[in-house]
């Protein structure tokens, strides 16, 4: 019994890394452009399908898709922001929300048209079955460990990028005070597009990792958006490592919920989110404002 819960705990912690990666792109855009991309989950699933196509067409190991899909998603994100979203983001909340909601519906139905509603998964070969034994009789799959490590590396990379590169600093400046950035000669529309490109890059990473981990289908995007959102709120806004903790808490709640009753997996995660919202609306590792 105890071993079972310890197992749920470890699996949840590892899953939390992936959730934090889902969340990173979402909170990045909110911080910089002040809007929530309702199609973020669908971007992740789109990336998973791109990875699937790549693996099926070339026979490459799915991990190698990490080198191809995320940059492609980033390019897509940059173009999407320049051509579409930049036209609405500064016209208020409603247009931006509705345009991304429309994008979400378009992506879902195009995927449905091309790939049908069948759930898919991309087998990762020997990685699928390899595991390491932890003390206490808990076995941890190598694949979840790899996914967790990749997610944490990506989050660390993001943190480094925002602190140590010129573009990263400019993006933080936009996030603090958008009009001022124009005064120092930076192109806000370009920076917005860069932000979306990075968010799409994280969605690309998350999608490729997800395609090896679980089944996915064209309608799986919105649930990923909700997990991302919950991880952000639980962890507190503007706090990358808080988001990681938020993702882990969500992962653990879902894992333990699933052990109690399969119907409680999602419910337990949502309820923990609502509890945090009720008790600490600024998140456990709270940001200053939202």
């Amino acid at each position: 019994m105890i071993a079972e819960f310890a197992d749920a705990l470890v699996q949840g912690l590892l899953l939390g890394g992936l959730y934090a990666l889902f969340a990173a792109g979402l909170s990045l855009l909110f911080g910089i452009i002040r809007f929530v991309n309702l199609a973020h989950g669908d971007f992740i699933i789109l990336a998973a399908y791109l990875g699937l196509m790549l693996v099926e067409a070339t026979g490459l190991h799915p991990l190698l898709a990490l080198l191809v899909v995320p940059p492609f998603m980033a390019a897509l994100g940059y173009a999407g922001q320049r051509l579409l979203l930049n036209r609405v983001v500064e016209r208020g909340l409603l247009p931006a929300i509705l345009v991304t909601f429309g994008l979400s519906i378009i992506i879902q139905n195009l995927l449905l048209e091309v790939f049908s509603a069948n759930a898919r998964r991309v087998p990762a070969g020997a990685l699928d079955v390899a595991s390491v034994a932890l003390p206490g009789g808990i076995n941890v799959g190598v694949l979840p460990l790899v996914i967790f490590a990749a997610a944490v590396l990506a989050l660390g990379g993001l943190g480094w990028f925002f602190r140590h590169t010129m573009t990263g600093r400019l993006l933080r400046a936009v996030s603090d005070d958008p009009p001022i950035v124009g005064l120092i000669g930076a192109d806000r529309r370009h920076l917005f597009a860069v932000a979306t490109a990075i968010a799409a890059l994280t969605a690309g990473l998350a999608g490729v990792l997800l395609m090896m981990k679980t089944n996915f289908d064209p309608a799986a995007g919105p649930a990923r958006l909700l997990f991302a959102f919950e991880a952000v709120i639980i962890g507190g806004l503007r706090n990358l490592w808080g988001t990681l903790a938020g993702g882990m808490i969500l992962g653990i709640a879902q894992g333990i919920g699933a052990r109690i009753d399969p119907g409680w997996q999602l419910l337990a995660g949502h309820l923990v989110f609502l509890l945090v919202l009720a008790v600490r609306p600024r998140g456990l590792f709270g940001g200053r404002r939202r």
Partner: protein
Amino acid sequence: MTRRWLDKQAHLVVLAALAAALLAAPFALGRGDLRLLTEMLCMLALAQMWNLLAGYMGLISIGQHAFVGFGGYVFFALAVLAGVPLLWALPLVLAAGVAVALPTGLLAFRLSGPYFAVGTWVIAEVYRLLAAQVSSLGGGSGISLPIALVRDFAAHPVLRDRLIYWLCLGLALIVVLGSWWLMRTRVGLALTAMGDSEQAAQSCGVPTQRLKRALYVVIAALSALIGALIFLQKLRISPAAAFSLNDWTITIIFIAVLGGIGTLEGPILGVIVYFLLREYFSQLGNWYMVMLGVVSIGIMLFEPKGLWGIVQRHTRWRLFPVRHRLNDQAEE
């Protein structure tokens, strides 16, 4: 002045004729058409209420299906578990709607702006998952209304359809005319001010938070009632159908966006055009949904006030005049 008076009378005559035609519709339409019209009225009421929230108060909810489904489920629970006669269950659903909207609102209002939108979505998911856990109501697969209660409500299916139609018509009229009336009162002025700038409205003494919460609760309760009527017509309920994001949120948002957010006439025009589109294009399946997505993005980019915005550019005529008031006062 005479011209204006005549216009006003003609306007009221048009509205009265419309209402009379709708009241008499069951005697002229076949069952299928009547059911379609019933559905249109329900969608109109939902779209109009979403429009009040989003278009006037900046509360963009993506979780209205929570209340539609909740209303349907409470209605079925009262009938199946307690044997409450269907007509009596309806006011109880309204009360339950208020009772659940208060705590739901407390949670949702902890978030603002775009986070409010996603938060309402999560809450609706929670409702759906909880409904699927209630095994006495069929769990995930759903349950039907007891046939005896349905017969008590109306002995004959044709009569049942008509009763449901009139109830939905009444609700739709209450919502549409109620919104019109509301927009002509002090509250309406406050809402218009909030639509333009919430901070400015606040600084003029508009209790924006209180207004938002009050309207959110009223709209939730009315949505629950509509949910009860929708599933009374269907006679069967399941978590997937009751808490359908597609049917009760995406569709009503599309109707409001298509017709024109922030206008009272928009949702009416939107509902008519939406049902025409559905009639002719829904057999395209996935491409139909892609088309709806493209249309709504196109509207947001090029015509944010929707189809009614286009109409407004070409005529000064309004079905529900609310903006002439300043002029009226100036002339008086």
